[in-house]
């Protein structure tokens, strides 16, 4: 049974349709990416999923059914709008938020100690939250998300405001959580992080699902029939190649005819005496897929209007 199941969710605010018939499932123990350009409806989808907003139509199942008060203790949520009580010491803020997730104050204290050590925040423990830097507050926010050892973690833009060292630390932390069996739903538009971390993704644009599935599958789907060849030699005219373009200063992108296989092309290149430095299937990066899909979607919408 999936940990999270959204089916045919729609939510509008006045005339604005924020989410329009979106469905996806998040399986237990995976890192799932919720992607989309700014204003696509990612945050609204998360809020509907967390029962902050009631959907206009559709249904949500989380941890095996509708949201209940008891389930809130099993969920760790880090909203895009980071929120901490600014006027109280960090220790008190973390303890308070921890106890609201069902921990006893003593339990919360001991876990805070180990997390602060791990996140290198021990020296700021009794400082007021507002005295911490943005990055430190971000880390503190992560502590409140994970302190109660949730089954499901929902993180909106986990890497914003973090330097490369802390970004790496958060990535390791997310992988560590996944390995423990925690389900992670991550919303972001930093595609390279998604490529590194996520198993499956859903891409929404203008409130609608435009891509959904495993990362590998999607890549394959968009790879087209092309290869990239790095060489310093001039390329001969090859049968079965429909189109040649420069990929960069030392590489070409070859679009193949449907009947040609990549194996044939490699053989012909070698037979033709071309010194091949690198030969790869032209799989698009997630960034490229993202841009292509979103642009197509915009175009379609434009035509319809």
């Amino acid at each position, binding site marked *: 049974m999936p940990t999270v199941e959204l089916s045919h969710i729609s939510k509008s605010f006045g005339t604005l349709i924020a989410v329009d018939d979106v469905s996806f499932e998040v399986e237990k123990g995976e890192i799932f990416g919720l992607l989309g350009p700014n204003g696509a409806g990612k945050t609204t989808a998360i*809020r509907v999923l967390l029962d902050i907003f009631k959907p206009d139509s559709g249904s949500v199942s989380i941890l095996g059914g509708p949201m209940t008060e008891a389930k809130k*203790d099993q969920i760790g949520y880090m909203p895009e709008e980071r*929120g901490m009580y600014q006027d109280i010491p960090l220790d008190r803020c973390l303890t*308070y938020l921890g106890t609201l*997730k069902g921990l006893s104050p003593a339990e919360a204290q001991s876990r805070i100690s180990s997390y602060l050590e791990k996140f290198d925040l021990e020296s700021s423990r009794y400082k007021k939250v507002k005295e911490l830097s943005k990055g430190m507050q971000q880390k503190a926010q992560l502590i409140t998300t994970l302190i109660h050892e949730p089954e499901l973690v929902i993180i909106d833009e986990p890497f914003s405001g973090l330097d490369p060292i802390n970004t790496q630390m958060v990535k390791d932390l997310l992988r560590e959580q996944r390995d423990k069996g925690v389900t992670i739903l991550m919303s972001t538009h930093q595609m390279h992080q998604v490529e590194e971390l996520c198993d499956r993704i859903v891409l929404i644009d203008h409130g609608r699902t435009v891509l959904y599935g495993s990362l590998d599958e999607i890549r394959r789907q968009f790879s087209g029939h092309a290869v990239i060849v790095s060489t310093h030699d001039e390329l001969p005219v090859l049968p079965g190649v429909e189109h040649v373009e420069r990929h960069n200063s030392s590489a070409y992108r070859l679009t193949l005819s449907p009947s040609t296989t990549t194996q044939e092309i490699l053989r012909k290149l070698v037979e033709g005496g071309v010194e091949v430095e690198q030969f790869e299937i032209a799989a698009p990066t997630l960034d490229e897929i993202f841009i292509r899909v979103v642009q197509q979607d915009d175009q379609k919408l434009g035509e319809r209007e």
Partner: protein
Amino acid sequence: MSKFWRIAWQEYSRHVFRKRFLLALFSVPLMLAFMAVLIIVIIWSDSNPTPIGYVDQSGLLVNAIPQASAKFPERTVRMLAYPDEASARTNLDTGKIQAYYIIPKDYLPSGKVDEYYNKEPKGIATQQFNEFLTTNLLANISPHIVNRILAGSKLNVVSADKSRQTSQDQIINLILPFIAGILFIIAMSTSSGYLLQAVVEEKENRTMEIMVTSVSPNQLMSGKTIADMAVGITQLVVWAIFIVWILIIGKSYLSFLSGVTFPAQTIFMLIAVMVPAFIMISGLMATIGATVTEASEGQQIMGLFTIPIWLPYILIAVFIQNPNSPLAVAMTLFPLTAPMTIAIRMGFTTIPAWQYIASLVLLVISAVGAVWLAGRAFRLGMLRYGQRLRWKEIFSHQRA
């Protein structure tokens, strides 16, 4: 401990244990205590215990008995007899006495007494001499009668239907409900101000989403409301204890406080009005908190509600003159002006039962309405950062 109590305790402790709050809490009683001490010191220093002399030519003061001693902080003035005016004058000039009186032979028929001083006697010195004279004139009459003559009659004014009465030494009881009303409303303002702040702060700190995914909106709002009401009640109780304490102490020293009573019925009637008023105002403030985006904006709107609440205080002269005027009745019925109006009118008139009950019913309805409004505004407005929730939206059919 349930989440509700954790929220309530967090909210209560963060206000009550703050220096600013403790300062405000104790500054009022300390100010009152300071004023009480100041009054006592002024009266004490104003009274002059230097004896007063008299030359009795009438023979009425042979074997004179002293007048009753003055009550603290006044000081008793001793009366010294002089055989002739010359010796009295010498002592006046040396400052041994502050004044002297000559009671002439024909005092009884003429009633004339001459008073001599270099500087006019202050405080109740002259009064004490009059008392001394009267006491001695009445020396042969039973002490009960003497006391009565000296103290005079107590005029007890009773209303025609006998439902109310008052006398001069109970004047304080007229304004006690009014004072209690002011205290209630100050406590109410404190509480509801904090509540408004609490809701806006969750928005300003962007903690709202974390909160509503940890606890239910009901736990959140009821926890905060109970805590902030408890803050107001803490304030009220501390002040009330001080005021009652001062009144009880003052009762034995200050004649205008001597008749002070705390009738159970009045207290009960006041509390019955203040509880729904408290809830109504808290609900309204929470609603404002949920609709605005910044604390400063909230304070401004709060001002609009504060004006009607305090309006009866501004109109107090009108109420005293005619506590049953149509204006007074209207303001008794209008929920926002009701608490203060009732507190004022209670002292000066008997509020007809129908008015009191109608006002109470309206207050309860308003309280329920305000809580409903707050709940709805909260659900619709909780995630509006930087964007105000319009009142129109609260009443629209939007799904919260």
